[in-house]
């Protein structure tokens, strides 16, 4: 794709052309030859949008909350990136988040569904690029919604300015919360389905956890919502805004975004190295090393050291 054509696409996307924006997102989603150009072009204008991550267990109400948030934000052009898992067996996916959103959001909300497409590492680079494109197209806020199971999904949602973790009454006690690894990433907790019994119990469990300590000087607030009725969503949005202003005043925003970009670059290096690693295993030097591994003459660790040395010459194998 030529640079002028790309500029034209971005210009259309910025003026609200949904097809143009949809196509740009496809390019970064595929991480094809155009993706690097799109990412680079987007990066020039990105950095304006508030990025909000929403994560939690399946069925906890993330999509409903996300749709409602976009509506109460009062923003001119909010965007939602809804990520659902691909089937590991067929590569297909059912992306059903829109049915929980469409009734609540205005037509100015841009919703894109994204499948994880099997490669966990790919998600870690495709999502930041997609956020970047939405940001550069003038969308704000950009809300990223992922299922909070699996390290990558949690990490993706946590790579936001503000991360909202959604739980429901009866979801398990505080120990479960710790196990899930969700507690550390939360800037704001939501107890959704608060019309159910024991919503207060769920809140108490979270309070107890937070009493044991939290990072920095921000203590994650807990908001009770009944998202299907829209209850508590205004409170949630106020907490998000309060967190946004905390990020600005404390300087945490700059630190966070800096950390985020560092880990994105690291993820990309890792991904690139893995591709090359797979290629090198299949080429001649890899082939002969693998033969020796099969004969039990060389350990997998030693073979890896050898091949790594051909990938990165500055890192010679130790004899």
């Amino acid at each position, binding site marked *: *794709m030529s640079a002028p*054509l*790309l500029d*034209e*696409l971005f210009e*259309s996307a910025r003026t609200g*052309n*949904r*097809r*143009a*924006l*949809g*196509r740009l*997102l*496809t390019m970064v989603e*595929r991480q094809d030859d155009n993706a690097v150009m799109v990412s680079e072009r987007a990066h020039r204008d990105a950095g304006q949008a508030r990025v909000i991550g929403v994560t939690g267990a399946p069925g906890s109400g993330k999509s409903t909350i996300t749709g409602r948030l976009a509506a109460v934000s009062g923003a001119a052009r909010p965007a939602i990136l809804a990520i659902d898992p*691909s*089937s590991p067996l*067929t*590569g*297909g*996916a*059912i*992306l*059903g988040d*829109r*049915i929980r959103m*469409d009734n609540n959001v205005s*037509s100015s909300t*841009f*919703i*894109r*569904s994204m*499948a994880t*497409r099997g490669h966990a590492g790919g998600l870690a680079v495709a999502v930041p690029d997609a956020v970047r494109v939405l940001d550069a197209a003038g969308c704000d806020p950009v809300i990223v919604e992922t299922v909070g199971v699996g390290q990558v999904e949690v990490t993706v949602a946590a790579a936001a300015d503000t991360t909202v973790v959604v739980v429901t009454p009866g979801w398990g006690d505080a120990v479960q919360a710790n196990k899930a690894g969700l507690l550390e990433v939360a800037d704001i907790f939501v107890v959704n389905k608060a019309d159910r019994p024991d919503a207060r119990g769920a809140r108490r469990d979270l309070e107890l956890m937070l009493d044991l300590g939290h990072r920095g000087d921000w203590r994650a607030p807990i908001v009770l919502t009944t998202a299907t009725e829209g209850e508590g969503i205004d409170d949630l949005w106020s907490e998000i805004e309060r967190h946004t202003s905390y990020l600005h005043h404390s300087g945490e925003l700059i630190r966070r975004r800096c950390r985020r970009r560092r880990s994105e670059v690291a993820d990309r290096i890792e991904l690139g190295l893995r591709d090359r690693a797979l290629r090198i295993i299949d080429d001649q030097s890899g082939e002969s090393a693998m033969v020796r591994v099969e004969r039990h003459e060389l350990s997998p660790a030693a073979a890896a050291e050898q091949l790594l040395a051909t990938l990165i010459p500055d890192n010679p194998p130790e004899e």
Partner: protein
Amino acid sequence: MSETPGISPLSADDQEPLRVVLAKLGFDGHDRGLKVVARTLRDAGMEVIYLGLRQTTDSIVAACEQEDADVIGLSMHNAGHLTLAPRMVQAVEEAGLGVPVVIGGIVPAEDVTVLIEAGVAAVLGPGASTEEVVAAVRAAVAHQSPAR
């Protein structure tokens, strides 16, 4: 907004999953068939963007644009197909989307030709096997953009 510069049908290799928007148009609550089709297409390796019940031509067009979909699948069980299906085709044309529309559901044999003439890519009846559904969707996309 019929023409958006720089957007032509994607010439993807077979590695990229097809993206299918599935919906029911208007007042029609029979979504069991659509759910079976969603599962079928997912199992065939496609990405199904499931819009579900009570959609409008506008909401489906908007979803297709945002999702950069390759094909639209509509389920019809309320005898409204002669009105609604051509409207969907027209809305897709007006938006300049260039995506095929596949219909599934209860469509009398004599209406099938009418729908095909109106620009519907394929009509699948209650007897269609899952293989036929997958093949019809793939064929519709291939016919629309031969590059795929």
